[in-house]
């Protein structure tokens, strides 16, 4: 295939160090220029004394400011502005710096640099109480927010080298659990839960996912968002989410992207280059250990030994690599370091009410495989333009485009990384002469299947997000405006997976050349095609169209300390998804990969489509009196396509009250050390409409199944029907929240607290107990389940400038949420301890492993037939002297951790700033094996080997050598907590150390600010309950989580 550069990006250097070079060069040049040029100008102007004059204004209003203090830095020389904002300082050193300060305004420093007129605009100091928080359709000042809303500004996220934005915000948002499952490029979308789980249903069905709204539009991907484009992020956790009604019960994440700021064009360039290495690699036994353990098993069970003592000796000694290899599969598969990089270039500005923001981004993420096959590349562009057409009509255009390219080898990460823990070390990854060795089965030799020799799976996502907005500010009625917006989001996905057989090398033992000791010194190998019988091609097109229309009116009125805001809107959302897929095989050659080159025989086409739509009426009324008494009502009425006409519409109100007690006189007089205290309470109802549409009718699907006729033709079949639930409707959640925000000792300490109680009713679940199987009814999900979810969040902070040059901000958050199944139509249980009602969702029923049978005598304890010393003891819970299914008990904490916490530290000292996040989770049980093929068919983990039971090591908690499908070890019948580990952990998630280069280095280059930084993601596990595998990742067989170190720069022109 001819390689054509179809876009300029493909010209970018590909090798990571070269990719690094370009930005490094820029920085070096900048530094060089910065150092040399000012030095030159300095020499010329060195001793000049001059008079400096100027006017100081308020940056926001442009009005002159009187009484501003201006001081020559490092001296007592200075002046104060007059009523017209003017000042004069005589006899100033031309190289000195002026410091402008005024209470309530941000102090500014300005180098004189030989000028005689220096005008200055000061910005009002924005405390976080003035910070604007997005609360859904509108914004509020932090001080006026009554709901439980967490927010985050996009600043500070850009420097963290995490491929997915979600992994950069983990631990920063109280009450939000973010768990990264995999480090595989392009597969790093984490599992996000807000305040734990309040519903039933498997994760994979998305029943616990929060609603994500980006720039007011549902259905946009958070995973691809360029952190540089993020202005702010808010999480609505309580009744405040009721503004999103029927889909808000799991909480809402609102993201707002940046828009331009008025002023001259501002160019910003950011980049980092990251270096990644796995956090923890699960340990497996080496060849001698594996052979030893397997032999123990075989001897104990009267089977032939596969490996003799001599074999074991040779595996250990390494003197016979041809016949006694000691393969480190994981080590041979992965490289120590791999790369990731991100670049972003943005320009913004505007004047006379018109603003623009344009950004270009590029992100790449490489696999940890030595073969460097798997790759993630993303190009994104974003344009936001706002322009006034008349003085009462303003329009905005917002266009974002994404090109995402994921490339994977034929075998999945599971079959590559996971199998590396399974492949036996007594087999060959590479022969001593370098050729890839034989497979374990299915052609699985990860060192080869991680390359493209078996073909590749090339997935491209093209996304175009468009929003048009118009706002009418009605001139006759002060405070009234109308806004209409229309979004059209188009996603095209194209996948081409062309696979072919690959070559592995098989031994010719009979032709081996042996030395005098009998060891093979060389051997011819037979290249053999494995894996697939012939080349095959699978192509798939998906198209998704999301359309959102929103019309709303807003009215604001202030009178006598009363502030009223009214908002009403109408919204319509539609989603339309189509897929078409084609398959052909028996290609004459893998060199011709077009669809038509495949054979006609056994070709296949498939298609699929879904639709979704929602209509909504939205309202909000807020009232406050002097910012002291706050009240808010939100309301939404939603109609969903998923439900039948009579149960289609639902009403979702929310009521919120706040009292800023610290404004009261009695407080100021008695509790003044708490300088800010706001009590908040809310109550609301929200919904969730999970699952497929049209469950209100008996649904028949199509499939191709039976073959009829002498020609053996495949006949399309329909059914079986899923029984309708004609009354299907929302899940409804009642949310109660009470909390306070407080600041102590003049903002030194912040302390916020929230307690919540969610009761989710009408949860869609099967009427399991009441309908016997003999009816043959495949039960619909009905709105019958009830789950309670309670918990709290604490957020505490310490903020202080210790010296004028050293500032410290430390904040920590801790969230706890525990759910309890109140009702799910559970069938009767034989024994009470297996009743799931009352437990959290997802509890696993399994045996309780209480130790290892030490010896024959220990086998007096009830056990299964065939148990031997060294086997796991299952607790006889029923105390009936036999071990059967009645002895299984429920283990909680297997769905998600109940606690999730984070600590953020920000320290600035002179031009340095340090940012760090510590993040962790509480008890969470996860399986510590990857598959059940250990033993004859797979390697053991090191934790199965170390301190295992043997006839001479009997006092231990590790079982004897076992084999996967022996009755006692058949995981299908004996799942027990022996196989589970607590994955509680605390980790240093992110660290960023930034140095802002002194301005005099680059003044004159047009650069207004430049900084360089080093940063890290998943930096260190500070504490973890298990070190067998990364507690946060997907377990022992998952693609490892990666630790990333990066260096980067941020330059603004």
């Amino acid at each position, binding site marked *: 295939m001819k390689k054509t550069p179809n876009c300029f990006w493909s010209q970018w250097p590909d090798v990571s160090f070269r990719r690094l070079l370009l930005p490094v060069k820029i920085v070096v040049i900048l530094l060089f220029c910065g150092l040399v040029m000012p030095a030159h100008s300095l020499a010329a102007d060195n001793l000049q004394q001059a008079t400096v004059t100027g006017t100081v204004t308020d940056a926001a209003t442009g009005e002159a400011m009187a009484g501003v203090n201006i001081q020559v830095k490092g001296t007592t020389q200075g002046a104060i502005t007059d009523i017209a904002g003017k000042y004069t300082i005589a006899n100033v050193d031309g190289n000195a710096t002026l410091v402008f300060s005024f209470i309530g305004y941000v102090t500014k420093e300005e180098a004189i640099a030989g000028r005689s007129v220096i005008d200055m605009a000061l910005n009002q100091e924005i405390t976080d109480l003035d910070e604007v928080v997005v609360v859904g359709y509108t914004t509020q000042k932090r001080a006026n927010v009554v709901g439980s809303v967490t927010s985050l500004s996009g600043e500070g996220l850009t420097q963290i080298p995490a491929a997915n934005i979600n992994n950069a915000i983990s631990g920063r948002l109280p009450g939000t659990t973010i768990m990264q499952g995999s480090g595989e490029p392009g597969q790093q979308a984490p599992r996000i839960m807000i305040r734990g789980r309040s519903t039933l249903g498997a994760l994979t069905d998305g029943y616990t996912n929060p609603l994500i709204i980006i720039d007011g539009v549902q259905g946009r991907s958070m995973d691809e968002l360029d952190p540089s484009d993020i202005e702010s992020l808010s999480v609505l956790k309580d009744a405040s989410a009721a503004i999103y009604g029927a889909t808000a019960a799991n909480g809402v994440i609102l993201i707002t992207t940046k828009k331009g700021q008025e002023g001259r064009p501002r160019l910003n360039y950011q980049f980092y280059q990251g270096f990644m290495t796995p956090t923890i690699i699960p340990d497996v036994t080496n060849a001698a250990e594996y052979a030893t353990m397997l032999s123990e098993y075989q001897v104990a069970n*009267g*089977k*032939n030994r596969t490996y003799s003592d001599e074999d074991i000796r040779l595996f250990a000694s390494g003197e016979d690599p041809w016949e006694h290899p000691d393969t480190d599969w994981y080590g041979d598969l992965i490289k120590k370091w791999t790369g990731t990089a991100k670049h972003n270039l943005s320009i913004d500005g505007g004047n006379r009410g018109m603003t623009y923001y344009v950004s270009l981004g590029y992100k790449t993420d490489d696999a940890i495989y030595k073969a460097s096959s798997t790759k993630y590349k993303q190009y994104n562009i974003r344009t936001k333009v706002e322009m006034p057409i008349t003085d009462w009509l303003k329009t905005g255009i917002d266009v974002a485009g994404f090109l995402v390219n994921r490339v994977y080898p034929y075998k999945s990460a599971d079959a590559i990384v996971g199998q590396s823990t399974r492949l036996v070390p007594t087999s060959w990854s590479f022969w001593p002469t370098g050729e890839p060795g034989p497979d374990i*089965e299915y052609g699985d030799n990860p060192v080869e299947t991680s390359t493209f020799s078996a073909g590749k799976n090339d997935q491209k996502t093209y996304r175009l997000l468009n929003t048009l907005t*118009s706002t*009418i500010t009605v001139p006759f009625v002060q405070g009234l405006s109308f806004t*209409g917006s*229309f979004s059209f989001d188009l996603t095209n996905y194209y996948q081409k997976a062309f696979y072919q057989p690959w070559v*592995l090398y*098989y031994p*010719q033992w009979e032709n081996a050349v042996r030395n005098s000791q009998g060891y093979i010194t060389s051997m011819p190998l037979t290249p053999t*095609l494995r894996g697939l*019988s012939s080349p095959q091609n699978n192509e798939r097109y998906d198209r998704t169209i999301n359309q959102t*229309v929103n019309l709303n009116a807003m009215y604001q009125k202030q009178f006598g300390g009363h502030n009223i805001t009214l908002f009403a809107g*109408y919204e319509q959302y539609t989603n339309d998804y189509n897929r078409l897929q084609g398959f052909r095989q028996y290609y004459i050659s893998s060199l011709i990969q077009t669809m038509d080159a495949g054979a006609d025989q*056994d070709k*296949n086409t498939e298609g699929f489509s*879904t*639709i979704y*739509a929602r*209509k909504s009426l939205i309202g909000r009324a807020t009232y406050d009196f002097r910012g002291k008494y706050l009240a808010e009502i939100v309301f939404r009425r939603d109609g969903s*396509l998923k439900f039948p*006409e009579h149960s289609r519409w639902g009403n979702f109100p929310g009521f919120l009250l706040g009292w800023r007690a610290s404004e009261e006189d009695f407080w100021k007089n008695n509790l003044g050390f708490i300088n800010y205290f706001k009590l908040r309470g809310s109550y609301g109802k929200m919904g969730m409409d999970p699952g497929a549409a049209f469950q209100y009718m*008996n*649904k*028949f*699907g199509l499939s*191709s*199944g*039976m*073959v*009829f*006729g*002498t020609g*053996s033709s*495949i*006949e*399309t*079949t*329909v*059914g*079986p*029907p899923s*029984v*309708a639930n004609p009354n299907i409707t929302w899940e409804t959640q009642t949310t109660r929240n009470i909390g306070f925000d407080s600041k102590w000792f003049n903002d030194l300490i912040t302390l916020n607290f929230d307690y919540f109680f969610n009761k989710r009713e009408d949860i869609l679940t099967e009427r399991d107990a009441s*309908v*016997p*199987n*003999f*009816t*043959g*009814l495949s039960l619909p999900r009905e709105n019958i389940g009830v789950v309670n979810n309670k918990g709290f969040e604490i957020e505490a902070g310490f903020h202080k400038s210790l010296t004028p040059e050293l500032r410290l901000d430390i904040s920590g958050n801790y969230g706890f949420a525990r759910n309890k199944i109140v009702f799910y139509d559970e069938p*009767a*249980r034989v024994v009470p301890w297996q009743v799931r009602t009352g437990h959290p969702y997802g509890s696993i029923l399994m045996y309780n492993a209480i130790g290892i049978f030490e010896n024959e005598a220990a086998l007096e304890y009830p056990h299964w037939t*065939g148990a031997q010393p060294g086997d796991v003891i299952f607790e006889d819970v029923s105390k009936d002297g036999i071990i*059967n299914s009645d002895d299984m008990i429920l283990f909680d904490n297997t769905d998600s951790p109940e606690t999730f916490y984070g600590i953020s530290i920000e320290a600035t000292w002179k031009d340095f700033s340090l940012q760090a996040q510590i993040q962790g989770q509480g008890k969470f049980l996860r399986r510590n094996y990857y598959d059940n093929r250990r033993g*004859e*068919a797979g390697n053991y983990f090191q934790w199965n080997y170390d301190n295992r039971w043997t006839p001479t090591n009997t006092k231990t908690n590790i079982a004897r050598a076992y084999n996967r*499908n022996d*009755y006692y070890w058949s995981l299908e019948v004996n799942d027990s907590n022996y196989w589970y580990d607590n994955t509680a952990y605390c980790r240093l998630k992110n660290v960023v150390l930034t140095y802002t280069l002194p301005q005099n280095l680059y003044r004159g280059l047009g650069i207004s600010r430049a900084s360089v930084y080093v940063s890290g993601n998943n930096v260190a596990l500070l504490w973890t309950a298990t070190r067998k595998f990364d507690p946060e990742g997907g377990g022992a067989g998952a693609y490892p989580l990666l630790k990333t170190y990066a260096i980067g720069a941020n330059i603004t022109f």
Partner: protein
Amino acid sequence: MKKLLYYIIAIVMLMLPVTSCDDVLDKQSVDSFNEQVVFSDINVVKAYLGKCYDRMGGNTNAGILGMREDLLSSATDQTLCIHRPANYVNLKGTQSPDQLGFFASNGMGGYLRWPNLYANIQNINNILANIDDVPLTAGQDVLARRLKGEAYFLRAFEYATLLMLHGGVILSSEPWELGQDYSTVNRSTIAQTLEFVLADIASAINILKDYPKIEQGRASMGAAAALKSRVLLFCASELTNGGFQPSNTLVSFPAGSRETLLQQARDAAKDVMDGDYGDYSLVGSTDDPALPLTEAQVQAYSDNYYSIFTQHGKWNSETIWAIQYPLTGGNYITTNRWNGPNGYHNWGNNGPTEPAVRSFEMADGTPFVWDNGQGEYLRTATAAQLAADPLLSPYNGREPRFYAIVLYHGAPWQARPSDAAAFDPYNKVQTGSFYNPDGSLIIAGVDTRQGLIEAWNGTKSGYYLKKLMDPATQGQYFNNTNHWVEFRYAEILLNYAEACIELGGADLQPGLDALNMVRNRAGLPDRVTDDQGEARAFVRHERAIEFFAEGHRFWDLRRWMESENVVEDVYEMKVREYSNGDFEWYYAADLSEGAHREFARADARQWGGDHLYWLPIPRDEMNKAPQLVQNPGYN
């Protein structure tokens, strides 16, 4: 004024996207449809019925009926499932309402399951309840009536399966609906259940007799008649007639019913033999063979028998009803991959056990005798002895079906895949290993658990199952396309033979005649006896061999109540092939440690009592419907 106009225009434009839309909430589903659509067009009903075929036997996987990764015959003494032996709880003595293993797991078993069988009955009842109201165009009534006949057959098949598993079950000829009162529903007696099944069969035959030329794969009157023969023989056997809990009407017929049931079973088979339901015949010659057979003749008989299970396309005359599989798309089976030797990158499941292998006769119809003076564990032969007497090898001189059913050490099979070719210069199955005359190992056979290819898939019993595999299919890459034969004429003959023999007296000889047709076709001489007991042993033996691995053994052992005699530990049959041509075959013993012999069990088995002859109602169901009466012996 002009300004006002602007406002109006602006607001109208804002409204435009909304008002111009149809109501987005009132849409038809794009990925599915409802029963109104299904029952508006008889062709869609046909497709719905196609799904019911798909789910026969309570299937949820791609394989249908007996063709699956873990064969039903592995729930008997015939074969051993090496990957999930713990799931065959009836052989472990652990079968209980909580532990149904193979009969409950969603995985590789997943058929013969209570919920799935009832789910399909619900589908069929749905069709039967609505099919008469489907609007038809001219000529479609022919199809509509036929589909109804097929539906009766399918319902009869599902209820017959439930009967044979559980005894008397809950009967309904109407679809169930949500909201009905299920709490008073209970099981019918086994007699009522049989009556229900027979009535459906009669309805099916009554319609399908008008459709002699029916699409291959669709239920025919012949299939219905064959089902009738099968279910009647089951009901006429010892288990349901005084053998176990005679007074429990869920699992036993009233005292004195047996004679009538046997007559019914006999007549049902006889009707098929008389050609009332189509022309069926055994494939191959049914003449009494002239003994001794030459090697080529043995091979020819073997190939003829084997061909029944490797049919593609049009069925032969023996096939009454079968399931077909495509190569890609839809249902699929990978028999070769499931059962083939690991040395072909296959999974080595369902290997025949040594006792089953020993039960094959010699080519002259005499029983095989293992012990030639060396005891029950060991058999040896030097190269010279073998040359003089080939029958010293246990695998020489056996009856023709042996060579169609079993892959033993030395058996010919497919060409090896390229990467395995180097390990097999002889092009034969290697379930044994190769030794130097001094006893040192040269190399473990490539198809053993010590072999160089995917050893964990190596046989544990020392054999692989050849029958059902297609020699033209490369199992590691491709699906199988040979049919699964559910009803074949040989079953009718042996059903008839057994009913006759059990009736005894004047029926005995016609029974033996039918039995001998099956034997002669297989190249074996007639059985001659006038002793009912001996005849019974003959027919039971013949069923075991003729239907090897087809699953009949599971039903047969239960209705004969034979399990307690045959459930025993399974050991590995080991073969040592010496480079000088000597052989050693040994069973249940390990020679690898020199003189020291210890037993290496491949699978520990244990019979747990007569109640295991019936499957319990699953615990889950008992919890949902506590009014149901559980089968005897289960709590």
